[in-house]
Each structure stands twice: as C-alpha cells, then as structure tokens.
C-alpha cells in the first residue's frame, strides 16, 4: 500500500500544482487589494470577499485532494451522468435561478452561497466530449460524429445563452482547438479566424468596399493558381460564402446582438467613445492598468482599485489590480504563469496514452486559455467586454472550484497515465 501511495504522489504533476497554487494565492492577494476595507484589514476575515476567497481556496484544495484520491475509472464512467446533471441544472437555473446582474445564472444554496451551473458545464461538456471522441471508430471529420459533437457542445451553449450569459457561452467555442487536434479540418480554424476578421472589417468599413477587396484578392489568388482547377472552385465557393457573410454582418449586428453587446463592440473598435457611460469600465480599467507603469504602485496602493473606480474589480476586472499594483512586471508574471500552465497542460495531454485523457487535457487547456485571452483582453480594451472570470484569480467559489475540478481531474488522469483506462 505504501509503495502504491509513493508512486501515486510521485506521478502527480507537481509543476502544475505549484503553478495552480501560485495563481490562487496571487488571486487571493489581489482580491484583498481590490476590495480592501480599512474596517476589515485582516486578509482572512470571512465577512469580506478576500476572507471568503481564502475559504474557497481551502475548499478547492480539499476538493483537489479528493479528486486525486478518486478512481480514474469512476470519472470516465460517470461522464455522461455528470453531463446530464449539468444540463438538468442549466434548465433548472432558467426556472428558479436568481438573477444577478442581468444573468439568470445562479442557484441559491442558502447561507449566502450560490452555485453557478454554467461553470460546471464546461467541465462536464469536456468530459463527455472526451468520452465520445475517444470511442472506437469515431472520427470528428465524419459527418455523423461531427453532428453528435456539435450537439454535445451545443446543448449547454444554447441553455447558457438563454440566461443570457454570453461570456460563458462563448467559452465553448474554444473547444474547436480540441476538435482540430482530433482531426477536424483546419479549414474550420481558418474560416473561424476569417469570419472574425470579416466581421470586424465589415463593421469598421463599408461592406461593399470589403466585398470589392475580397473579390480583387480572390481573383488574384485564382489567377496565380489557375492551373489547379479544383482550387479555383474552392476559392470561388469560399469567396461566395465570404460575400454572403459580409452582407449578413450588418443584419447580425443590428438584429441578433443585444444593444449593450453592440456598444461594447463599438467601443473596442473605437467607433464609439463613451468614457463616462458605456465605456466607463474599460476606460477606468485601462487607466488602472496603464498607471501601473513598470513596477506598479505597490500592494494596497492602487488608487484606481482602492477607491473603486473600476467596477467588478474583484471578479471580472481583477486583472486591473494586478496591472495597477504590480505593474508591467506583475502582468508579465501572471500572463507568463498562465502561458506556462497552458503549454504544460498541452504537454501533459500529449503524453497520455489514452485518447480520453488527451482529449480532455486539450479541453482543459483550451478553456483556460480562452478565459485568459478574453478576460485580460477585455481589461486592456482589446476584446469587447464579456463577463468571464480570470481562472484561479477572480473572486468566486463556483469559478475557482470548477477550474480546480477541471485541472485536477486532468492531473488525476495524468497520474494514472501508465495504467489502463
């Protein structure tokens, strides 16, 4: 038994665990700075957010240990059940959920604690996706498999969008990297980037001009590669799709998107400037981060954060505190830790013998990456304001625990990688 124990702990990827703990502690300190209250100066005062976060971190560590002690088989076997429970919770939240900040995303648990099912949906969707794709003879490039995959991802997306929580919905898009890794045609990625690019350009410029540019560029490419007949047809189809997309952008923009989403996009693209109103958050957030300079203003000395110029600063805008009080140095450290973690996760995923673990690993890396990119991008005005937390750092029990779950299930699978699943 003792022999087993030793090898078990030996097999856990401690590098990841250390990064995880580092990020959690960075988050805790920055929440302390963000909502610092002179009446409750102690960092472990449970009436404050930082006190609660400390408790969440403790619970998360307990959770992590619990996961590590589980049987891997248990996780894989129950993946569909987890998924179903989450979907049911997502339906329930739409009926009895509490509305916080315009999103009906919370189920009240009593005692001031609430559960956010959409956080756990990421984990369970990942699990089920891994379970399905690792099945024999499933190829994502085949139409049937693609349909089922789309359904697995689509159902929670649809339910979360009903809340309506745009941020959490968009997170599922990151799973496209998982599918790509498992054989999805690269065209999906290319088309994805192309669509984002076209979307932005058609909002910024006259759609007709964009179409003209597409036509000219497309014609040139076709002319260069005129020997390849097949390529010409593909290009022509592609161009046609692009043009239709460009023409529909205005429609999507004006009719599908909600007004506040439109404004957020306008602000990021610089079409609108409203530093006192709709653009207040982002503007103050940029001021907070920008005023940090190289070394920052020092712990608990950030004026923007301390005097509550940035709303939501302990949750979605927690990176402001990092940027303001720790400066560029702190920003680089945090982003560096994240990048290191993500690359480490990819490495872990790739070393798995079982496809299930690999697919799941990619899912975890993609989801964490997407959160980091959108959250930090939003605080520095690169991405429209989308309310998703910064993993391990933002205040919130559901978020922290779901990321812990996500991460440590992978570590558990990884520690068992030599075994069979």
């Amino acid at each position, binding site marked *: 038994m003792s022999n087993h124990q030793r090898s078990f702990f030996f097999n856990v990827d401690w590098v990841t665990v250390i990064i995880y703990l580092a990020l959690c502690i960075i988050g805790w300190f920055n929440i302390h700075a963000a909502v610092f209250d002179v009446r409750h100066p102690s960092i472990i005062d449970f009436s404050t957010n930082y006190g609660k976060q400390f408790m969440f971190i403790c619970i998360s560590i307990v959770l992590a240990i619990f996961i590590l002690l589980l049987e891997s088989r248990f996780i894989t076997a129950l993946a569909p059940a987890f998924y179903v429970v989450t979907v049911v919770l997502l339906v329930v939240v739409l009926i009895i959920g509490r509305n916080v900040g315009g999103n009906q995303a919370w189920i009240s648990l009593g005692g001031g604690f609430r559960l956010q099912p959409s956080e756990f949906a990421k984990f369970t969707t990942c699990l089920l996706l891994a379970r399905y794709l690792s099945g024999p003879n499933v190829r994502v490039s085949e139409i049937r498999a693609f349909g089922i995959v789309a359904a697995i991802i689509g159902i929670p997306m649809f339910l979360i969008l009903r809340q309506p929580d745009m941020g959490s919905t968009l997170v599922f898009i990151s799973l496209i*990297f998982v599918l*790509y*890794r*498992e*054989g999805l045609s*690269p065209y999906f990625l290319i088309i994805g980037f192309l669509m984002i690019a076209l979307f932005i350009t058609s909002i910024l410029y006259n759609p007709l001009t964009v179409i003209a540019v597409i036509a000219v560029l497309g014609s040139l490419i076709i002319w260069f590669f005129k020997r390849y007949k097949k390529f010409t047809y593909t290009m022509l189809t592609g161009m046609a799709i692009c043009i239709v997309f460009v023409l529909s952008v205005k429609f999507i923009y004006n009719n599908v998107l909600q007004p506040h989403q439109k404004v957020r996009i306008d602000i990021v693209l610089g079409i609108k400037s409203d530093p006192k109103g709709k653009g207040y958050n982002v503007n*103050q957030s*940029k*001021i*907070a*981060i*920008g*005023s*940090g*300079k*190289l070394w920052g203003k020092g712990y608990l000395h950030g*004026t*923007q954060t*301390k*005097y*509550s*110029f940035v709303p939501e600063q302990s949750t979605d805008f927690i990176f402001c505190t990092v*940027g*303001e009080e720790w*400066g*560029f140095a702190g*920003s*680089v450290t945090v*982003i560096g830790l*994240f*990048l290191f973690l*993500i*690359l480490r996760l*990819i490495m872990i995923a*790739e070393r798995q013998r079982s*496809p299930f673990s690999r697919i799941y690993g*990619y899912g975890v*890396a993609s989801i964490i*990456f997407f959160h*980091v*990119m959108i959250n*930090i*991008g939003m605080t*520095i*005005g*690169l991405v429209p304001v989308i309310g998703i937390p910064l993993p391990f750092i933002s205040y919130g029990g559901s978020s922290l625990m779901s990321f812990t779950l996500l991460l440590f299930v992978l570590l558990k699978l990884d520690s068992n990688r030599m075994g069979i699943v």
Partner: protein
Amino acid sequence: MNSFFERRYVIAGIFIVIVLVLLARLFYIQIIDPKYAIYASNNVRRQIIQYPARGPILDRNGKVLVQNEPFYDIMVTPLEVKPFDTVEFCKMLGIDRDEFNRRWEKAWKYSPRLASVFEKQLTAQAYASIQERLSEFPGFYSTPRYLRNYPDSVAAQFLGYIGEVRDKDIKRSNGYYHPGDFIGITGVERYYEHVLRGQRGVQNLLYDSKNRPQGKFANGMFDTAAVAGERLTSSLDINIQKFGEQLMKNKVGSIVAIEPSTGEILCYVSSPTYDPNLMVGRERGNNAAKMYADPYNPFFIRPIQARYPPGSSFKPLSALIALQEGIITPETGYLCTGRYRSGNRWVYCNKHEAHGYVTLNSAVAQSCNGYFSMVFEKIINRNGAKQTEATFADWRAKVNKFGLGSKLDLDMPSESRGNLPTPLYYDNKYQKGGWRSSTVVSLAIGQGELLATPLQLANLECTIANKGFFYKPHLIKAIGTKNVIKKEYLERNYVGIDSQYFEPVINGMQRVVESGTAIRSKIPGIIMCGKTGTAQNPHGEDHSVFVAYAPRDNPKIAIAVVVENSGEGAHWAAPIASFIVEKYLRGSISPRESGITPEYYENANRLPDLSTFFHNKPVKPAVIDTVKKSNGDSSARKKSAVINHHTSTSNKYLAAQTKTKKR
C-alpha cells in the same frame, strides 16, 4: 489517432501568438503611453487650496482699522440629507417654503453629491442662533469665510479695497492667483498685497469614484499649511483721521499730516470719502457703481493724485534757495508798491495791497508777491540772461530736492509726481532761448506750471520743521508682529539747505499765524508756523491752501490742507489745519481768540456747484489772474490748462472743456 500529433505545435503556436499580442498591448499602455498615469492621478487627487486669513491693519496706537469678520455659508449636500422638518428649517433660516424649494432644486441640479451654498454670508450673530440646531439636519453644514470689515469706517482711500483678481493680474502672477481669488485693488491693500495676503496652503486629498474624500495623498507629504497674512501697523492716528474726515465733510479737498521726526503720515484725508464697508459683501457691485457715478469722485485719492498750484505756500521754499545761494540775506529789503514789474508784465500782490518796505520775515508773513518775484528773478538772472536755461535748470534741481516734481515713493499705488516744469518744456513752448526769468516768474509764487500734491506740500513742511531734511513719508510704519520697519524710512533725505537759513523763514512763518494772514487760526499756547496759499482756479472760486507745522520747537506735526473752491487759504484751510494740529498735540480743542469752532467747519457745505465743478476738477495752472500779461495770447495758456487736467476727468467733462475752448 496520433496522425494529428504535429497539430499540437499549431495550437501552442496560436496560443503563444495571442499571449504575445496581449503582452504587447500591456507594454504599450503600461510603459509607453504616459496618459493613463495622468488620468489615474486626476481621478483621485484633488488639490484643495487653503486660504489664509488676510492680515489686519492697525492704526499707530494699535486700534483696528481693518479686520476679518467671520461669516458663514450654509452648505448642503443633497444626497446626504435625510428627511427633516422643513417647516422648522425654513423658520430657522427665515425663508419661506417656495424659496426653500427653489434653492433645494438649484443645489440638486448643481450636484446631488457635491456641496453647494444654500444660504450665503450669515453674520456671526445670525449664525450663533442656528449653529447648535444645524446638526439636527444632516446634509446641511456651515463653512466659515472671512470678509474685510472696517469698524470705524474711516480712511477709505488709504485702505483701498480688495476684489476678485483680474485676468492681467492672473497672468502676471505666474499662476499664483486663480480666477475668483481676491486681491488688493487700490490703496494699502494693493501696495502691501504680498504681505497681507499671507501664504496659501495646499492640501492634496484623495477622492473615490463617488467623489467622497478618502484622506490625504501620500500622508500629507506634499501638503502645505496656510500662513495668515502679516499684520500692518499704519502710521495713521485714527482719532485725527476721524476728526479730519469730519472737518472735511461736504467739502472737496484733502488733509495730509506728517510727523516730521519720522515721516509717518498721521492723517490722510481725501474728501469726499466713502464708507469702506460699502466695498465689501453682497452689495459691493451696486455701491461701487453709485460711487463711480458720483461727480465728486470719492475714489479719487486727492492727497496723492490731486495736483494744485501750491500758491503762496511755495514762497518759503523760494526764499530758502535764495538764502542758500547767497542771493539775499534775511535783511535784504524790498519796497512793495502792490505790484512788481517783471519784463513786460506786472505781478500784483493780493488785492493789489502795497506792503511797503519788507524784509524776508515780513514778506513771508504778509505773503508779498513782489518780494518773491524779485528774489526769483535775482536767482534766475544771476549768471546773466543768456544763461537763463542753465540757471533755471539748477534752480529746478534744488526745488526738486524738496520732493516737488517727482514721486515721494509713498507706499501707495497711483501717486502723482505733481509738475515741476523743465527747461525743455519751456524750450518747446517758447522755442529755445525764447524765454527769460520774466516769462516764468509766476513760478516764484507757486503758480504757473508748478503743481504739487497735498502730500508734497506736507512733506515740504516737514523739511522746514526738520530744518533741512525729511524722512520719506509713509503710511505703514511697521510690518508684521515683529514690527519690521523698512530701512528706507529711517534715512534722512537732505535737501541741500543749511539749517541756519531756516530760522528767518520760520520766523516769517510764525508771524503768519501770530499776526499775519492766518491770525484767525492761532492756537492758544501752541506756536504754529504756517503759510497760507490761494491756488488759482480758472473755473471757479480759488482753492484754499494752508501748510504748517507745530510746535515751533521740537515739531510734532506738519500739515497741508486743501479745500477746493473755497477762496483764500486763511478762510478755510488754515482753521481746519489748526484744529487738526491742536487735536493731535493736545487731544482737545480750546476756545480760540477768533471765536472759530470746529463745529462750524464741520457743518459748512463747501461742495462746489456741479455746473461749475465740471470745468474745474482740482488743478489748473492755467490762466493766472495775478500775473497779467500786458500783451499776450491767453489761448496758449488755456491749452496748457487742458494738458494739465488730471486723469480723473470724465468724458463728459472733456466735452464740456472742449466747449469752453470754442467759446
């Protein structure tokens, strides 16, 4: 399955590229673009300026002339207001419900979160009655402010007033003043602005996003405390000043009295005057407008801005220069026939009276024009007629040493230099070499182009009293609680006349009061030396001028009084001067042999008729009745009258003047 193994690099590559984009953006806003740091500082830091109390001004005996009176503004921050008994509150402030609603809406409109003034400038008494109850109304609170207050309402022109700073002052101050600040505009308030204003303090406070104060920036490291303005001790004696203002009531003119042994100005009356309290507070604008419209112009600072021909009061000076030059001795005689022939013109004595044989002593006492014209011509012609210009320049320099024709550097703004014509002036007027002693003989008796301010006349008396020197006259004798005295006020300014030459002149001046022209103004028991003067006024009655000092030995006070449009010096100026002198030396007025009483002079109304007054603000060398030209062109002289019209002349007045000329 692992056929897609290499795709890990694509995925990692995409992640790395996106992270690099984030880092590049962070690098830009955190390291390169400086504007965010400035925005952040603007967000939270507010500089609150702490206004120091302006320095008070005391009289020479420590009585307060100006002080700061506290008053209170009731402020309101609408969002902090809790439901309260509005009826009680309205009763407390003495306003009705509609007024309350109006102000409440205004405050709310200005800002629900910021304090704005609800009730302005409550006096300390009014505030005392509501002070305790104000705490029952959260959201309402008081802030103390200070206004200038003049307990005795005297010496308005000396004190001047303060007002909001003007654009040019802001520019000139290199950022010291901000719009809305107060600054001394006239008088001592202006001249000693840098002493009185004190030192402003700055507090750097931090404010949160709701604009609530959050404490000091950097623990107050960059804060400075306000330093109250320095106290000024003026040389004025408030009793004399008050008495002088009473005596000059309903008269146009001025009184300047100086202590000869120090140069301290004891009395500085400009009449008509005004209550300095009118230039403070809510009604200030209206009051100022009224006073600007006043034809007698109370803002005109007559002691230093009005210029009069000194008339006979100049004669002692003429004599002193001649004595020093050795042109005459006290015994030099002259036979007065009532007129003196100078070149092709006649100089007449007053009322064409013939004084018979006079010497210096009696010439001064009887104010013999002939004698002094003779003396003047002797001086100017001593090097021959051809040297007139050079000799005149020499004479002018000697007169100038007495402080005539140049500023005395009084510690007040807008001092006039008077007028002491230069040879160049006559060259331009009569062409070079085209003038002789006879051309300018009217200067001998203090007329012609010669103009002096009452301050210069009083200073002249100081010089005579001190027998040859004067201290720079000044209004502020000590600065601050340490009573700092400016060094320049301790220096004697010698006028270049040896003290022995003063005796005969002083004898003559004593006789002026003992038995001469000013005999009615003799003070029992005090020997006063004086000289009457009658300043020619082409537009109405002459200006009454009297200069004197007393007592003869160990002089304590030198004085110059001008009462405009009041005829001979002996009639109005001399009695007023004698009362001031006696009051100062003795503290009370004793019965006079001549039977004159201060009450009579206080109650007399010598305000000139407005229809003539417009042609006739103080000054005017102008057409001189005494000096009659046998043949001459009087229009040229009238022209010079226009040139010498002093600055306060209104446009209306100028128009009238033009009409006069046409006539």
